[in-house]
């Protein structure tokens, strides 16, 4: 879809009338277009006002409790940058691997669905391919699990990574006998952050994560995650 056409989708997006493919295209455009972001902010407010246009019966009282119970059951949504791991490292690694495997199964099941365009972006497919690859190696260290396929494609799964401080990004590195090579920047994704690595992970290499002001070519801070194959 051309840029002009995308500019004109703002109202359609604010009203949620786009299908999932159009929605993603528009969101990608939004990330680059300040004009559309400003317009969306203003049109969304008018759209949300429509919510007040209907007669609203009170929700069932148990709904409130259910929401609060579920929220309590979920882990805190923001954790300190240096999490206190309550479980022994090995147990955490097992839990993270289990989570990664569950995710891999979920992700690979997507490819069978007719609407897989809707459910999976190219990045998710890449992640799914790595996590579900036969013979992939899973190694863990504290809350992090590194998954490496036989061909050396890697993905890092980090559990409960707090959001990077304002103005900072996380950057992954692959270190193998020498200077670490940049393997992509990323943001926290909540409970499980999964990062496909942009560098091959050779046998014996270590994957590192640092906090940086922007994407850089060599680390400027001490890695706070290290997982070795």
């Amino acid at each position, binding site marked *: 879809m051309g840029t002009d056409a995308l500019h004109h989708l703002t109202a359609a997006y604010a009203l*949620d009338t786009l299908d999932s493919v159009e929605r993603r295209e528009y969101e990608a455009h939004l990330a680059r277009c300040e004009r559309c972001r400003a317009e969306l902010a203003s049109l969304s407010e008018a759209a949300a006002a429509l919510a007040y246009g209907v007669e*609203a019966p009170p929700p069932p009282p148990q709904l409130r409790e259910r929401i609060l119970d579920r929220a309590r059951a979920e882990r805190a*949504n923001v954790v300190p940058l240096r999490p206190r791991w309550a479980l022994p490292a090995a147990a955490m690694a097992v839990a993270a691997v289990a989570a990664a495997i569950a995710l891999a199964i979920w992700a690979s099941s997507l490819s069978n669905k007719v609407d897989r365009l809707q459910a999976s972006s190219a990045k998710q497919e890449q992640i799914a391919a790595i996590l579900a690859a036969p013979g992939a190696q899973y190694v863990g260290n504290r809350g992090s699990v590194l998954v490496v396929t036989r061909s050396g494609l890697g993905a890092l799964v980090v559990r409960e990574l707090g959001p990077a401080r304002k103005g900072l990004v996380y950057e992954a590195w692959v270190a193998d006998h020498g200077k670490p090579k940049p393997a992509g920047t990323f943001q926290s994704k909540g409970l499980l952050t999964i990062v496909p690595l942009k560098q091959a992970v050779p046998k014996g290499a270590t994957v590192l994560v640092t906090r940086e002001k922007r994407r850089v070519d060599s680390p400027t801070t001490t890695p706070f995650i290290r997982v070795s194959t």
Partner: protein
Amino acid sequence: MGKTVSSMLRAFAHLSDEAVVALVARSDHDALAELYDRFGRVAYGLALRVLRDESLAEDAVQEAFLQAWRSADKFMPERAKAGTWLLTLVHRRAVDLVRREERRRGEPLEAAGEHAGDGPVDEQAWLRYQRERVQAALRRLPDQQREALELAYYGGFSQSELAERLGQPVGTIKSRMFSGLARLRELLEEPTEGERTWEPTPSTT
């Protein structure tokens, strides 16, 4: 936007909606409860309007609030009011569910007024005021724009479904939605009748 008298009596009363969301981002359960008390009813009303099924509406509201719980740290107060952000999450969930369920939508909801008088009096009054304000603004839109907005927002139809249903090209639907929403925004910014009564009556002579 979602403040009521009874919510003002509680500990969070002095906080703006945006400040409540900031506390939610710090995993404060009481703040989440407060957010629900401010917006739960309008959220449920919206979800019910789109989904026409009580248990699906509950699901949509629950998922939206849990999504708010998880992603409150990404809320940007300079971008949107907290109410807009939250109701956008609710609407998105409801629309996703209604499309998955392929339920029939868009027809007027029967017996909508049955329970509208339940709940705290201040909340009722607030919601009624808001409802009348929004409905009055909708009535002032050209018919085609109003129809496009109502089917889109309350019906949960995609723009191509709307085009088919209204027998118009997608481009026409897009422009009706845009003009309608832009006009609605202007109308909602105008002072309401009550706020205008102080104005001098123009002389007719």
